[in-house]
């Protein structure tokens, strides 16, 4: 009987131009390589998390990858009912014998793009645009600020959040409005951790000839010349790895944290932004990257790992 992987997105939805989308790409890569089809599901409410998990577990799926901290509770409830099903959960940590938890050091990646922003900024003013004001997103902001200050202590940062409900992830209009305001106030680089709303920031960057920094996936190509870089959170790799391991029976339960060292996070460098990041700057960034990996630089963190209780 052939291998049956399953991918469950969170409420954000498959194409959130963020980590759900990245997960989707990971799974696609796996399919492309192995030719093994995978099942997927986009829930519309938290209640459906557990529903979906159960349903695929009952169907004897070989691996259920679920994306997002929202799944923590559901996995906790379901996993022990199906000890012989393998669960991989991203962004959450569940300590069960048949659960593999993968979390990321977003703060490290954010630190690096912060460094880039710090080096690149002309005005000495950078901006951060968060979707919702929640700890997960604050970590991006915090890391970003740290990185910038590391290379330019006097830099000052303007911080905006788009909203207080999930609507905030899908409100590019307000995002663009806030971004324009920041640009007019002398900000020249904005790091957007806001899902689809981020598009609004990128567009504002293009309209006012400034820079934006993408998040999660590589968004450099969205508006070449205006996306300075993207803070990559390699959810795609994580999903891909989980599926391959499970397929070749090397899958192991436990908690795995992916930072710069594990290439779980990073910054995007490609033909679209090569011109924006000169050689010297690149070397500086690489050097700092190395020192984070070696532990010379400890990147601070708000609200530790995403442990659920």
């Amino acid at each position: 009987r052939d291998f049956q992987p399953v991918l469950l997105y969170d409420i954000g939805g498959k194409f959130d131009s963020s980590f759900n989308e990245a997960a989707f790409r990971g799974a696609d890569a796996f399919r492309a390589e192995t030719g093994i089809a995978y099942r997927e599901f986009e829930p519309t409410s938290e209640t459906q998390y557990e529903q979906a998990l159960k349903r695929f577990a009952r169907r004897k799926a070989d691996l259920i990858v679920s994306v997002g901290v929202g799944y923590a509770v559901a996995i906790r409830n379901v996993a022990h009912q199906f000890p012989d099903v393998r669960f991989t959960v991203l962004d959450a940590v569940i300590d069960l014998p048949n659960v593999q938890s993968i979390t990321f050091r977003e703060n490290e990646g954010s630190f690096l793009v912060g460094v880039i922003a710090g080096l690149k900024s002309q005005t000495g003013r950078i901006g951060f645009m968060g979707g919702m004001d929640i700890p997960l997103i604050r970590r991006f902001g915090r890391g970003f600020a740290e990185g910038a200050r590391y290379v330019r202590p006097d830099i000052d940062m303007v911080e905006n959040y788009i909203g207080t409900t999930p609507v905030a992830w899908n409100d590019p209009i307000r995002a663009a409005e806030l971004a324009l305001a920041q640009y007019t106030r002398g900000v020249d680089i904005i790091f957007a951790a806001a899902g689809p709303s981020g598009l609004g920031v990128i567009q504002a960057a293009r309209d006012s000839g400034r820079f934006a920094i993408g998040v999660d996936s590589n968004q450099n190509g969205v508006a070449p010349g205006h996306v300075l870089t993207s803070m990559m959170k390699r959810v795609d790799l994580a999903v891909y790895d989980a599926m391959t391991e499970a397929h070749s029976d090397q899958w192991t339960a436990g908690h795995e944290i992916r930072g710069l060292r594990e290439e779980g996070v990073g910054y995007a460098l490609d033909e679209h932004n090569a011109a924006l990041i000169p050689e010297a700057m690149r070397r500086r960034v690489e050097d700092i990257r190395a020192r984070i990996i070696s532990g010379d630089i400890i990147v601070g963190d708000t609200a530790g790992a995403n442990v659920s209780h």
Partner: protein
Amino acid sequence: MIARRRLPFVLEVVVLPGLNLLAAFLVSGLFVWALGEDPFEALGLLVYGAFGFQEAIGYSLYYATNFIFTGLAVSIAYHGGLFNIGGEGQAMLGGLGLTLAAFLFGGVSPFLAIVMAVLFSALFGAAWAAVPAYLQARRGSHIVITTIMFNFIAASLLAYLLVGPLQRPGGQMPESADFPEGVHLAHVHDLLARLGIAFESSPLNVSILIALACAVAVWFLLWRTRFGYELRVVGQNPDAARYAGIAVDRMTILVMLIAGGLAGMMGLNELLGEQLRLLGNFTLGYGFVGIAVAFMGRNHPVGIVLAALLFGALYQGGAELAFEMSEVTRDLVVLIQGVVILFAGAMEHLFRDPVAAAYRRWTSGRVQSRVQSRGAA
């Protein structure tokens, strides 16, 4: 003016809605077909997914519970002449209330905590409705606007508390810590198990009984009590109400308190029944859909329960449909829900005249024949 003549009960309550649903599914089917899936199979999956197996039924009823609460909340206000768009916010505050109760009394005794949670959910919901109600009654501030605004305000308030005072330790999302051990409403499958009846596990919990009790209570209140009578008089003719010695302002506030309380109790199902923690966006628009539910149910508790069932089925069946058909996304399911609301809820007259005509021809036909037969005799 006076409503057109009513048809026999069966036609009114079974045939007409049935035809409307049929039309709705036909139209939805076109979209499914356009996406290259088989509409009939889709319909089959939808129905099967909603009622085909115990777990499905459990989920359908579970969702229906939310709609009963919010539908009633819209409806009773409407009978009082008020358009309550604030179900969403009232539900959020209700959720907050029951969460506080859970943590405050959870230590003392789970049972006490549950009782208080039920109480608090209604109280907080009512309190959140009280402000717009008061402003409407005393300052004439249009309740539609104020309730909309209070939805936004409630969302922000909840967001603040969930990343602040009520934040889950080490949590990354806007959600509270889990409720204390044992503070949750019993699941129906557990109860049945105790009775020796095996039922697949589902989130369906005792709050559906609370919801149904509320429906009965609302019906009784509206059509069997003096209070309900006065409430309807105020809703339909405030001048007559004053003439009858009914304090209109007072009634406005009271009815909104009730409405808010009903909406507030939605959290019992979602949070105390299933999530066992407060989530930032647990209302998920149920408050708004409650408007459609109320009017589809013709603002009568029985109708509302039926409409709620329909929506619960659509939510659950829709999810199954999305599970099964790769081309059918959750967006398409939302579309189908919209189409159903349009046909079943807004176009009640679509088939009325033809059916009425057919019915008359039929009856007159029978009269004729009777006459003839008599003539023959």
